[in-house]
């Protein structure tokens, strides 16, 4: 059976990673659900800054910010859950995946949101360029997480039983 690699001093412990993603996940869920409420209020009050057809791009960008932010918040929670269940995941790749996912969780919804704050004749503002950067980081995080599942078999049976309760 492969042993999990011993963590380097620079790598975060499993408990720290799980705690961090639980915090980030629930906090960003709070932020982006609040954004959803704000957007709904803009609809309810027919605020032209958001709804006017001239602001089509802004509406699209902010809707995407809300959707991506909320979804990525749930992914953060899923990451915490996964990390908890794969204790044999090498600390180095786990740390990289963790920070990549957090960066993606900031850059993707943040990029969409900024893209809607400044709008140029139907084109989003340059914040939109943060989105592909976030996308690459999300890809890295998801790839590393998916690869980590090969360490599932390294989890001691007792730990699996505990986990399954």
């Amino acid at each position, binding site marked *: 059976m492969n042993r999990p690699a011993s963590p380097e001093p620079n790598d975060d412990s499993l408990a720290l990673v799980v705690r961090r993603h639980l915090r980030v996940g629930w906090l960003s869920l709070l932020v982006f659900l609040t954004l959803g409420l704000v957007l709904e209020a803009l609809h309810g009050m027919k605020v032209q800054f958001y709804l006017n057809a001239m602001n089509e791009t802004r509406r699209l960008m902010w809707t995407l910010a809300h959707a991506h932010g909320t979804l990525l918040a749930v992914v953060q929670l899923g990451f915490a859950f996964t990390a908890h269940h794969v204790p044999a995941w090498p600390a180095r790749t786990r740390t990289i995946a963790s920070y990549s996912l957090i960066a993606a969780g900031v850059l993707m919804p943040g990029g969409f949101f900024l893209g809607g704050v400044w709008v140029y*004749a139907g084109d989003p503002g340059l914040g939109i360029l943060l989105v592909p950067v976030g996308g690459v980081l999300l890809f890295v995080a998801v790839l590393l997480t998916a690869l980590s599942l090969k360490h599932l078999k390294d989890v001691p049976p007792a730990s699996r039983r505990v986990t399954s309760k």
Partner: protein
Amino acid sequence: MSLEWLVAVLLLAAALWPLARKTRSWWARAGALFLIVAALSGGFVWKSRAHHKLTARQQLLQKLPGETRPGGYVRSETCRSCHPDQHASWHRTFHRTMTQHATPESVRGNFTNQTLTWKGDEYQFRRRGDEFFVEMNDPAWAFARAQQETSFQRGLGPKPAPLEKPPRVEKRITLTTGSHHMQAYWVAAENGNQQFSVPFTYLFEEQRWVPRNDVFLLPPDSPPLPQVWNNNCLGCHATAGQPEPGALEPGALTRVAELGIACESCHGPGEAHVRANVNPRRRYALHRGTNGDPTIVNPARVSSKKSSEICGQCHAARFSLNHNEWLASGTDYWHRESIDANRPLIPGHKMRELTNDWDAEQVAHKQALAGYFWNDGMVRVSGREYSGLVETPCFQRGAMSCLSCHSMHKSEPADQLARGMEGNAACYQCHGDFKTKLTQHTRHAANSSGSLCYNCHMPHTTYGLLKGIRSHQITSPSVQSSLDTGRPNACNLCHLDQSLTWTAKQLNAWYRQPEPRIAGDLASAPASAVWLLRGDAGQRALLAWHFGWEPARQISGTNWLLPYLAETLDDPYSVVRYIGQRSLKQIPEARRLDFDYLAPAAQRSLNKSTLLQRWSSENLPPREQAKILPPQEIHKLRQARDQRPMELLE
């Protein structure tokens, strides 16, 4: 660094810093660095492109009539927030695209380095990126010159100086007009937002540029139409246009509520409506109720007279009682008790008596405007449907309105006929008893074109857009009217091979109409041929179109039409030639021949004689041969042609 850059860079740094701090692999750090550099350099490119796009748009907008007209207008973008379906259905219409900014999405003309000449002047059309240009004689100079000449002709000004060499300019195309059959283009003055017409129009079907004079029914060799959008077109091709006094002077600053015919053209200014409905409780109360919203006009909820008048703001022949007042207030329908107070309908049946009400500008056009009506006052140029409707008993004594047949939101863009109103259903709404006795009334087979109400009661007796268009003054076929006015009746527009005598006998036998006394050619010759050869330019255009009209060709046959249509190939009016050649193309013998209706006169005559030489009536069955008049008769009718100058500007 702008705030936008600062926020984006800070966000990027905040997101990547923890990752970079924890990463010891040089590959990972290089990857992160690459992402940062790529994002920043992409940002520079993005920003500069966006800046260029924005600058180009701002430059264009500065040259256009400002969409800033006061009076509580909010523009269609605002309406869409709450009415996305209605906005979408309107967005499909040709009303919306009547006037548009010149952009790659709106421009349909061929601007790939086209060089055209007209009346000795050269025009070069070209495209650079998303912008369109024409190099031409300075239109402001040409317009000023045309004004001087007009003043001199009216005895109001000195004789213009001898013609100097016109200054050449390259102008960006600013506006487009039309998107259905053809498209016209406008360029802006140096100062203010005056828009001058480019004297070429692009025809979609033919995919060719033609001089603007050759898409209107105008006397041959008419001078170029010196059009300024601000003074004329904005009245109906924009929402609530306000020309401003001095609209024809350099530096004029015209305003509109919106370019194109938008929501507020038909629903009135929307500001109060928008303000009232910010409150969601009010909106949901209105959704549950049935009374409609008093803060906005819904043409479907007002009286038939009022809803028709809303369309009739534009779809009517009107004149200004006070042109200067119109320049100041513009299209101000929604702020007045009645549109007739300052822009009454032109009374077609009283054109000869007109009138001290007209100001000098209008009187100058009186003679031309008189040609817009048949002798009995029925309007004969398209786009004036309301003028016909108000003379119709169904409107005067019934509840008929434009919305009886048309719908702005539940229809196809071409004719905007409401769903289900393509056949007789529109008329059955009130005349339901004809459902069971249709053939008894029409004396035609039930599923034939002769049993469609509108083919007999709304024949194509108005002219516009290079074709015949249905009259919206609902009448019954009458030979007496044809004799009195020269207006072809519905029977002879379908039965192209029949004489007026034949029609009179049918109408007498079927509907007990008195048989008028008919003399001359109309008594025995096919009436359609007589009107085509001998009529005025408007009649000739209508008949040339009917010679290509499918129902008429099915009833009357096709091949015998050729020698008559050949006579249109050298007609002095270019639109008659255009329509005639289109109809000719439907005849097998002529389909492969190449006619250019704008070819020099000698070539046109040659085309005609070539066509007639190649064609022989000997192959026709005797029944069709009998419909063709002897050449000397055709020549005689041509010699008797009504040569009075005609102007039908839709």
